[in-house]
């Protein structure tokens, strides 16, 4: 406890721990005048993007708590959400009932995918992140197989508007026009020209409460124990593999909900690549908020979504102002999102090594002491 307080007071340490968010604040401050957007436009965009993305980012927290690192497999949940939306769109159930039904339909698909992902990750302990990264690619292939070839002949799709002209498979874009921003507009209030989607924020708030509550449950404590040390947790009678699978399943289901919230805001989605970048951007946003591979809080998620998306809004326009080429800004934000993940991963690995060598050092010291005492 003492050490923790001491760390908080140490300004150098504070700066070091928050270097990534600070860097982003600086980037945003530089871009702000160059982009030349009006404050009300910026705020509007930012609030929209917060409502759209926060749920997805929050879905990453539980696997981190269980010591499984950044869950690149959250894409699986996104795919489940998309499949659910396609089915609901085909059943012509629109508006809020449609969204709720899509969420319900996505649950079994997410659980199935989550169990698969969790089992794979249990076979690859110690390299969960790279494995989940490739699971998302692998599942993308399976998703294409299902949506492009099985929807129509095997999974009944009634409406021709959804299908490709050849009679099977889903078109490249699925329109959710009748569902568009239904969730955001219900209970929305207007403050000085800025539309605030109260209901969406309420749902996000409820999820935050659920996460806080979950941390205190037996299962939540088990997850933390597993994260600390798998062997010790196993000796304490925790079913490690099962706990880890549950963590991934929870994350996948949440990501599915998150994707449905995300897509109802956009109003349509590219069927075959809506989910491709979701993992990268969500993870980058969480890391920008100051999270690391082994520690992430709800605060990190909120700060991250604000800073990361601020950069996302500003970068293209700034790039155009500086170089006269709009593509520069586009590439810049891709570079930054990959770069942030790279830096976070490097920091995590070096820290892990440092702690390891420190423990080794301490052990050696203790041994020496003991030897001297024996003399």
């Amino acid at each position, binding site marked *: 406890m003492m050490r923790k307080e001491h760390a908080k007071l140490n300004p150098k340490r504070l700066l070091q721990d928050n270097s990534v968010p600070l860097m982003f604040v600086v980037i945003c401050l530089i871009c702000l005048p160059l982009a030349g957007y009006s404050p009300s436009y910026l705020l509007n965009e930012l609030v929209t993007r917060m409502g759209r993305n926060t749920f997805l980012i929050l879905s990453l927290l539980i696997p981190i708590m269980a010591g499984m690192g950044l869950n690149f497999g959250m894409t699986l949940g996104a795919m489940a959400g998309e499949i659910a939306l396609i089915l609901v769109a085909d059943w012509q159930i629109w508006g809020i009932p449609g969204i709720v039904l899509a969420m319900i339909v996505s649950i079994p698909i997410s659980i199935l995918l989550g169990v698969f992902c969790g089992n794979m990750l249990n076979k690859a302990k110690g390299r969960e*992140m*790279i494995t989940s990264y490739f699971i998302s690619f692998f599942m993308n292939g399976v998703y294409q197989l299902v949506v492009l*070839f099985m929807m129509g002949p095997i999974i009944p799709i009634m409406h021709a508007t959804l299908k490709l002209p050849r009679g099977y498979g889903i078109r490249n874009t699925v329109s959710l026009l009748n569902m568009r921003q239904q969730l955001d507009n219900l209970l929305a209030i207007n403050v000085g020209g800025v539309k605030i989607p109260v209901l969406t924020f309420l749902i996000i708030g409820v999820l935050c409460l659920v996460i806080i509550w979950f941390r205190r449950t037996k299962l939540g404590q088990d997850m933390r124990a597993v994260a600390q040390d798998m062997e010790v947790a196993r000796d304490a009678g925790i079913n490690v593999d099962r706990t880890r699978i549950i963590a991934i399943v929870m994350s996948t289901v949440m990501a599915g909900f998150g994707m449905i919230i995300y897509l109802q805001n956009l109003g349509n989605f590219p069927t075959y690549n809506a989910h491709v970048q979701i993992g990268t951007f969500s993870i980058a946003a969480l890391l920008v908020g100051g999270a690391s591979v082994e520690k992430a809080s709800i605060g990190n998620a909120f700060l991250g979504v604000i800073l990361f998306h601020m950069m996302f809004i500003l970068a293209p326009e700034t790039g155009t102002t500086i170089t006269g*080429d709009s593509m520069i800004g586009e590439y810049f934000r*891709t*570079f930054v999102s990959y770069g942030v993940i790279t830096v976070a991963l490097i920091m995590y690995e070096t820290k892990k090594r440092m702690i390891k060598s420190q423990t080794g050092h301490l052990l050696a010291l203790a041994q020496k002491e003991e030897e001297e005492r024996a003399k």
Partner: protein
Amino acid sequence: MDRTDMEKTLENRDLMARFSFAARFGLPRTIIAGFVLLLFIMAPIVGADLTMQIGNVINRFSWNAVLVLAMVPMIHSGCSLNFGIPLGIIAGLLGGTLSIQLGFTGPVSFFMAILLATPFALLAGGGYGWLLNRIKGGEMMIATYVGLSSIAFMCMMWLLLPYTSPTMVWGLAGKGLRTTISLTGFYEKALANFLAIPIDPANGLYFPTGTILFFAVLALAVWAFFRTKTGTAMTAVGSNPLFARASGINVDRMRLLSVVMSTWLGAVGILVYQQGFGFMQLYMAPNNMTLPTVAAILIGGAAVNKASIAHVIIGTILYQSVVTLTPTVMTAMIHMDVSEVVRIIISNGMILYALTRKVKGGSK
């Protein structure tokens, strides 16, 4: 429940023992080899021209083999699968674009490209190796993201670097490199045309003797290197770093050397690929090279910590056969073009299999 599981495992083991070929050859490799065999058998039945298909496989093999070879040094030294191969590819692209920019043409431009790419490859490989030495154990994830961020960084650079050659920059703006640059007149088929043997000249199909020879020379060099003292030391580092350190080998230096080698081979590999393909692809394109390369060596029977030249050759042939034959054969059979899906599932499935494998070490 447990008993049935155990019985099942035993039964499986029995099966595996009975089909000892499969056991020795590795189950997924056997499945994929069987699949390829089936494709070759089906090809004439569905009306595809077998000679042409085989010719295509040979050509594609010659384009990709060097890139796959670039995996070997890093796997040997225990740096696991080189997901950071985009770094080498970028060095190759810099070499290629510079060679054209400086006005070299014909086959000379190919060798100039290799020469010009070398300093970039050494520099990038050195930095990359230094980084990987600091994060031992987490190489694969970090390599992936180093690759991705360097690709995104170079995307900006391709737009900003002051290239002026009219064959490479956008015609209208006069600056910024094009996404695809045709290599006609430069090093298109620079190697392939050397001693080319016609297979089906009417369709422009030749046996790329030069490219195959070039690969053979490089493969032989890598093979010979692993029989020198330094090469043996590198293998020792990969199989048991503690033992290697105890016997006085500088582990970090060996790993660094292997990364530099892999990066340079990656740079040469992409140039070989381009001379066969006839186009240079910039921007996000290097990203599409990682997966096929890693998947190919794994299909060949390599593991996260074991690889040989044989794995490279077998893997590239099998992978390229799948890529070449599935579109024609599968489309003719079921009237659906599932080739892309098959490719994605096979390559990623292979990587997942390698990552989740409990047994250490590859097949023979």
